[in-house]
Structures are given as structure tokens and as C-alpha cells.
């Protein structure tokens, strides 16, 4: 990747050092040992089942439906949820976990037989991915980290996981392996930092998604479904 340009920096930063009445700091500044860390206390020591109970409660607040299933029934659960939302077209990432979790027959046989159109993100198809996502009724994604406290799923983009998949279709579905549940955003931030420190890389887009798009800009009335999805649903997989 080409390194970007940096313009006007020295003059700008010298002025700051000047105002702070000290020489410029360019060498490493240690992050202090923070005196307060209240974020570590939230849902401290909660089990996965306890976190799931919190997630379920929170889904009521964020206008999101939640279904708990296991890997054996995952395929039929997804089928049911999608048909409740009016069926296809469906758009998904290109992700080998779908196949690993036994969804091949649903995606490649049942749905085509029922004339439910499924489009899998394909980097070789360029802009067509966006056109398809824009026309899709349902998006299916996978949560990498799930925040119980706020009811949030965390997604990392890459070449096979377009970021627009979560925003352009009318309905957003996230598959949530129960093992991805953590208390809150704190643990996600720690994990993101850890990934950066071990791989030297950060995904170009990390989405924290908490229910469907909404706005209260007109007389503070809540309107669900403004720019992004109008409906959202989480499918929790108990044994993953």
C-alpha cells in the first residue's frame, strides 16, 4: 500500500507545544495507569448464559428480534426468519463458516428451488455487489464479538465481507455464536487492540451494530428504518 502524504504538520504541532509551554513531544508518551476503570465492573464474571439473558432483555429495547437455536436447527431457523421477513433476495458475505455450519443445502438447494434469490459477495464482480445489496431484502452476516450490555454485534470488513451488506438491504440478520458474547464494548476494544498488536493490522471498517437504523429528528418521535435496515434480527447459536 502506498504511504499517504502528511502536510503542514511541524508548524501546527510546534504551535501546540508552544502553547503547552514545553518542547515538542515526539518520543513515546506512556499511557498513564488510569485511576478509574469502571468499565471493567460491568457484568464482571457473568457466565455465557447470564450474558445471553442480558442480551435477550436488551433486544427488547433496541427493536430487534432474537431467536436462540443450535447448529442442528440453524438452517431451518434461518429459513423461517427469512420467510417471516418476506423472503429474498438475500445477500451474504463469502464466508466459509456458512458451509461449516451446514447451511449449504439451504443456500444452494432449498432457496434456489423456492426461487429465493441468494447473492454471495464476490470481489471479482466489483460494483455488481453493491447493486445486488441495494436490491436485497435480507442481509445475513456473522457477529465476531457480541456485546451483551448494549445488544451489539461487531463485524469486521474485508474483501469477502463488504461493509455495505449491513446497510443497504431492508432487513439485517446477524448470526451470533454464543461463544462470541462478552459483557460490553470494553472487551471488544481490548480484542481489537490485541489483534492489532499481534497482526499489525486493523480491518478497514469495523461496525458496531445495535439494532435497526432509526432517527428521532422529527419532534423526537422515534422512526425506525431511516437510511439503513428497517428491521433487525439476531439468531443466537447455542452450541457454537
Amino acid at each position: 500500500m502506498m504511504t499517504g502524504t502528511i502536510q503542514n504538520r511541524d508548524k501546527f504541532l510546534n504551535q501546540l507545544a508552544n502553547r503547552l509551554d514545553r518542547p515538542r513531544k515526539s518520543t513515546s508518551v506512556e499511557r498513564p495507569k488510569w485511576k478509574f476503570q469502571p468499565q471493567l465492573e460491568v457484568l464482571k464474571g457473568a457466565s455465557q448464559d447470564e450474558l445471553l439473558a442480558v442480551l435477550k432483555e436488551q433486544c427488547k429495547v433496541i427493536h430487534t428480534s432474537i431467536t436462540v437455536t443450535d447448529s442442528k436447527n440453524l438452517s431451518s431457523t434461518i429459513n423461517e426468519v427469512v420467510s417471516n421477513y418476506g423472503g429474498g433476495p438475500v445477500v451474504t458475505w463469502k464466508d466459509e463458516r456458512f458451509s461449516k455450519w451446514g447451511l449449504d443445502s439451504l443456500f444452494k438447494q432449498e432457496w434456489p428451488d423456492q426461487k429465493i434469490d441468494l447473492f454471495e459477495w464476490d470481489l471479482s464482480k466489483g460494483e455488481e455487489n453493491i447493486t445486488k445489496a441495494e436490491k436485497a431484502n435480507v442481509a445475513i452476516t456473522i457477529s465476531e464479538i457480541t456485546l451483551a450490555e448494549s445488544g451489539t454485534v461487531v463485524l469486521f470488513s474485508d474483501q469477502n465481507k463488504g461493509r455495505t451488506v449491513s446497510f443497504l438491504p431492508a432487513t439485517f440478520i446477524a448470526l451470533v455464536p454464543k461463544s462470541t458474547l462478552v459483557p460490553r464494548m470494553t472487551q471488544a476494544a481490548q480484542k481489537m487492540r490485541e489483534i492489532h498488536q499481534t497482526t499489525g493490522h486493523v480491518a478497514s471498517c469495523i461496525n458496531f451494530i445495535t439494532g435497526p437504523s432509526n432517527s428521532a429528528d422529527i419532534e423526537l418521535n422515534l422512526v425506525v428504518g431511516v437510511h439503513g435496515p428497517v428491521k433487525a434480527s439476531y439468531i443466537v447459536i447455542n452450541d457454537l
Partner: protein
Amino acid sequence: MAMKIGADQFKERVDKGIHDSFMRGAVAGAQDGMSTKRRNATEELGNWEDWRSHGEEIRQHVLENLDYYLEQLSENVAKRGGHVFFAQTKEEANEYIRGVVQKKNAKKIVKSKSMVTEEISLNTVLEQEGCEVIETDLGEFILQIDDHDPPSHIVVPALHKNKEQIRDVFAEKLGYEKTSKPEELAWHAREMLRKEYLSADIGITGCNFAVAETGSFSLVTNEGNADLVTALPKTQITVMGMERLVPTFEEMEVLVSLLTRSAVGQKLTSYITVLTGPREELDVDGPEEFHLVIIDNGRSNILGGEFQSVLQCIRCAACINVCPVYRHVGGHSYGSIYSGPIGAVLSPLLGGYDEYKELPYASTLCGACTEVCPVKIPLHNLLHKHREIIVEKEGKAPISEKLAMKAFGLGAASPTLYKIGSKIAPAAMNPFTVGDKISKGPGPLKAWTDIREFPAPNKERFRDWFKNREKGDKK
């Protein structure tokens, strides 16, 4: 739109606000609703004071080491292929952005809500370049199509408008034919804006928090508009006030949590997006080119001085939602895009005392703002500091206050004069007194009695009453 809004003087703005009964009702309702949500969301944590203290220590550490963290941020953005431009003035920032627009031959620009781009009047510059600029946040969109009506609240910019007014604007400007139901209005905006995202050349955003360690930045919305602004156009420009950054993801997380609970009473908003650089080599969506413009525009003058703590602000508007003065006069009265207590502290610092000398007086100094601030900015103390400077250094105290203080100073300096003064007060005020109230006061009293009654001086002075009481003939 610049930081300054409207051409009216302070008193005229306040007069308009006070007599706009829909706006006052809307503001009061919004304040009550948002404050209750904020209170619930903060109290449920059980240790909100610790959260505030943590927010404060993070922000203070960053400000003390701002040059270091900005250098680290810019290095890491560039490493990921992003371009960084440091702009000391708004002119420099606008010139750089204009250059990008010209190079890209851009005609259509979509924006997600950003106070700092309002501050530097970026839209005006872009429109002069012949670009169509489209605000995508629903509230901002409403204001934009209504001939650029200024925002009246940092978080809910169109708070002063009711749904019938919005329907009328939609009908007039967009040929809208449906009802004033918020759902139908929002859906109309959605359908229009979808087309704009897909055909725009450039997406412009603000920045909630940049992360120095990774060169990332986060955007916080409920609508998801920022995500489409940053996913679809080929070029992205992000504009950030220079103080809006944190060392690592761990501090970002804390500030985002403080922001969403304080601003809208949500644990997290629907969309919190962390972006790093332009799209990667094989990515299909996201911008091909990314520019980060870091803006000083007067902020460095605040750094290192007695107002430094105002730079801790994370733009949550909690102070606005509890302010009794904002409740009565509304956002437009402040004459600045930054309204409420934070606006009254920040606007004179960024825009000067000549323009904003009245704002520090638009406060009862009750301290409610300071109490709710999630990063512990001592807002009412800073307002008081402004007043000290206005009176002592700038000599800009309101003239009636100057006269009154001078008279009181003279009168109080001499026991004889004080005695005479307090003795003749009831008689002097007699022509203006009805019952025990003065409703049309003279001179310095006029400003008060224009809006409320003033109690007439008591016929019996305190000193006389006390003397008599000591004598035992009064209870």
C-alpha cells in the same frame, strides 16, 4: 454556514426565541425527555461518577500530550495510505478540501452531520465550487432544504421545527404529497437520499474520536447515514477538530460509552463505526482515497490557558439539555452553532468577545451543566471566568450593569450615603410601584421588568426592622 448564525443582536434573538411558543414547548419537552433518558442511562451503571472521572482523566492526558498523539495519528493514517492535512485556519482547511474537489472533478458531495464543517463554513465553499452538497442526517437534511435554517441543538438540529412545518417544506421543495407523519416524512427522505449516496463523488464526515495508535477514527450515529457516506463514494474527506482523539481503542470505547449515554440515553447508538484508512487493495466498497483534515481554527489559543478544560468536550449536549436558560430562549438565541452552556463558553473563545460577549451572561450559574458533563468540564466556573475577563480586561460589561455597579459602589462606600439611599428607595420607586410590585422599571431595572415584575423596596428597611425587633416590640 459559519459558526455565527443570523445577523440579529443578542437581545433581538432572545426576543424571537422567547415569543416562539412552539419552539419553547418543543425545547422544554425535549429537555425533559432527554434529561430523563440520560439520568436513567447513567444511574443504572451505579458508579457514574467513576465513569466521569475516567472520561476526565483520559481527556486531560490527551490534551497535555496533544502534539504527541496527533503526530502518532498522522503517521498511522499515512501508513494506511490516507492523506493528512493539518490546517491552522479554516481558510487553509477549505483551500485543501477545495483542491481535492477540483482534482476529483467532483460535482456531488454527500455529508454526514459534522459541527466542525459548519464551524468552517465548508458547505458555502463547496457550493461556490459548483458542487451540489447534500446533508444526509435527517435533521440536517430538513434544515438544508429549508433554505439553510440554522441548527438549534448539537444533537437534534431541527428541534425547533414541528412536523407540519417539515411537511410544508417537503411539499414546497421536494414535491412531497403525503402526511406529516414522521414515518412518511423519513421514508421520503430515505428514498431520495439513497440515490444521492449511490451517485455522489465525495463523502464528507466529521469525527467523533480518532485513535492515535492505529490511525482509525469512529463515527457515532443512529441513522446509519455516516456508513453510507463512507462506503459508497470513491473519495472520503474527514474533518476533525484537533482535540478529538484518544490514545487507543480502549479509551475510544470509554468515550463512546460516555457520549451515547449522555447524549441520547442509549447504551450505544445503532451504529458505531471504526474506519481505518481507505479501502484495502481487494475491498469492493469503501473509499479508494481518504483524506483527514485536522483543524485548529482557534483551538490552540485555548490550550495551555485557563479555559483548556473546555477542549475536553465530546459534544454530547447533556449541558444543553439541562440548561434553564436554553430552555427559555432556544438554540438560535446564542447566535452560534454551539449553543447552551458549552456554546456560551466555547463561542467567545473561538469567535471572540466582540461577537459573543453576551453569552457568558446567558446563564444563571446554577451549575446544572457542570453536574451532568460526562468529562467534568467546570462549565459554570468557566462562564464566571469569562465574565471576569469581560468586566476587568475587556471593559465590555453591559452598560446598565456598569452604571448600577458604579452607583452601588459609591453608595455602599459611605455609610451615610447608604443610609440615605436605602431610606429614599421606596419613595423614589413610588411612581413605578403598583401594589408591592414594579412592572415598568426605570434605567437599569428596565431589562428586568421587561420580562418580569420586580418587588418594590420594602417600606421598612431591614436595619430599622432589626432595631425594632431588638427592642422587643416586633416578633
